[in-house]
């Protein structure tokens, strides 16, 4: 099986650690993952802000880059949902072949590899935010939680109001900053109520938003992408 990594532009530029963790994890599970150099961005920011033409161009580019792979792994629920939900409407002919081969990381681990215990060790108190596009776009269900429950040493604490949006929403965060910040304040309050050391999600863009508020408020709670926890194998600073 030829497996490619779609890192996403946000991870590539701002969160390379998530990409490295994804590669480490997949190699440990025996998957030889390729990184097609020509990849850039899925086009979500353009499409969701109202710039459809740019988005269609990027969707076509995505289809070209990943043609010929059997599976494309995306460590982002939001970018995964963009491909699976919006590409069929934006560029059905060009992307029809690639779309069904695109998997969010937890889908790839559970549905394709059939693994729920990835052999990780992470002795910390963790709470998980399911993120809107993972939950209601890709319908990941409890896949990420099943993976986290099998991590040795990890104490998983439920997040109150987990299914509510954190208020990121791409350019929504700057177009409606007051509402976005109010939503995030409530999310942060819920995170703090769990007493968790680490807030985990399958999407770094939501984590960037919540994490930016967590550090601004000097809470000491750290953010970690699901891939980073699943890649961890020894006692280390989260």
């Amino acid at each position, binding site marked *: 099986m030829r497996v490619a990594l779609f*890192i996403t*532009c946000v*991870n*590539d*530029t*701002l969160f*390379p650690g998530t*990409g*490295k963790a994804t*590669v*480490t994890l997949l190699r440990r599970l025996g998957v030889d*993952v390729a*990184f097609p*150099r*020509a*990849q*850039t*961005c899925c*086009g979500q920011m*353009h*499409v*969701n*802000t*109202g*710039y459809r033409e*740019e988005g269609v*161009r*990027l969707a076509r*580019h995505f289809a070209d880059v990943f043609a010929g792979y059997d599976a494309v792994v995306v460590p982002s629920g939001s970018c995964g949902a963009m491909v699976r939900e*919006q590409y069929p409407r934006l560029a059905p002919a060009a992307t029809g072949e690639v779309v069904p081969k695109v998997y969010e990381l937890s889908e790839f681990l559970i549905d394709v590899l059939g693994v729920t215990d990835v052999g990780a060790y992470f002795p910390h108190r963790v709470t998980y935010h399911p993120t*809107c*596009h993972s939950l*209601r*776009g890709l319908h990941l269900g409890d896949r990420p939680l099943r993976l986290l429950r099998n991590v040795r040493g990890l104490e998983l604490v439920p997040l109150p109001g987990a*299914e*509510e*949006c954190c*208020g*990121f*929403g*791409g*350019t*929504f*965060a*700057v*177009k*409606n*900053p*007051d*509402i976005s*910040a*109010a*939503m*995030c304040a409530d999310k942060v309050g819920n995170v703090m109520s769990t007493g968790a050391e680490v807030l985990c999600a399958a999407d770094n863009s939501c984590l960037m*938003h919540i*994490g*930016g*508020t967590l*550090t*601004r408020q000097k809470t000491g709670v750290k953010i970690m992408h699901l891939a980073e926890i699943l890649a961890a194998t020894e006692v280390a600073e989260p």
Partner: protein
Amino acid sequence: MSRTFLGMPARALEQSFPSNAAKAVRDSQLRFNLRKATHTIRDKRASVVGELPDWEELRQAGKAIKDHTLRNLDRYLIQLEEAVTAAGGRVHWARDADEANRIVAGLVKATGETEVVKVKSMATQEIGLNDALAAEGVTAYETDLAELIVQLGDDWPSHILVPAIHRSRAEIREIFLERMGEWGRAAPEDLTDDPRALAEAARLHLRERFLSTKVAISGANFMIAESGTLVVLESEGNGRMCLTLPRTLISVVGIEKVLPTWRDLEVFLQLLPRSSTGERMNPYTSTWTGATEGQDFHLVLLDNGRTDVLADEVGRQALRCIRCSACLNVCPVYERAGGHAYGSVYPGPIGAILTPQLRGLGSELDRSLPYASSLCGACYEVCPVAIDIPQVLVDLRAKARHPRAERLGMAAAGWIFNRPGRLARAQRAGGRLRRFVPKRLPGPMSAWTDTRDIPDIPRESFRDWWDRTGGGSR
């Protein structure tokens, strides 16, 4: 620009949604009222929907019936007109708010009456009927408890189902004490903010009105084409009073409310109560066919922009809406911004797609409405007729005119993303400048850094790491 009027004062249109919302979000009383009310209804809905094993099938049936009806709307409307006429009613066609208001005012004046009682109706709110009647010397009295609160408080509705959702019990008590006497029977001086006491005061105030008023105005939740029957669902019994007691009944109904047959109604009588009030069955469901027992009955069929919406392949799904408000009650943006921020009688997620379609994208407010959403998808998930609100929002965003600075920024981002080499060079530049990025950004990006830190820019992008290390294998 479309001139469709949607029942809000002109001043509400001068401000964009973000600035309206920014004011509302700082009103802690409003935040408290909205949070408490929306979460209560949201939880009730979730529990009664969750107990139906075939909810998804019902939802798909509702969607299919509405889509079929909308595709054949011309045929069903004519069938409806024939059936209503055969049953002794009169049908009037109104292109827009002005025409509908003119027709209704003419009908009321022809009776010689100067007062009308009203059943809660979104269509008459949409066309601003009460103000239009007042200009003609006719006083319209709202009889739904929440609409009464809004009317007495000289206020605007902020929710489709619960128009006074922004008011607390204490505020309602104040309004009743201060204003009820000006409109009719006054509230008792020892009125408390106990819900039963407030309801009793409203009941006594309204009872006099029902018994003395000769003309009633309603909307309708559904119209059955095969029989010409109109259907109103309500919870207080005020609707039944208005529909049966007065001599003349005038119903103003949007053209998309028609259903082909009584069998179709069965689906919606299950979908609507569970989605709106979180009840298994609706308390008062009134149906009437034409003119009954010597009443005069007039049906005003309202277009007011709906035909234009029907012409839009993506946006037309908004016409499936049965005004249940489930999307408002789950929306994190509505919960914090409140209904008035949307500048239309249709607030929340459905308002964000309906208002700009009916009214057009001409004003700054209407252009900002499709962006009044984080696209979290909670609205689509609860919609009983499966309106993909996020899809319509994104589609409307593509039609809206964008600010110049944003256009330039998006063009620059597009230029970078079009070539992986450009992306790599931009990332390296960012990596070199990482230490010089300030904690607080200037200009429009300060909207991010006012409340949030920006992430540390890494020294090396993922793609450069991959190239340098062979994906970690060197």
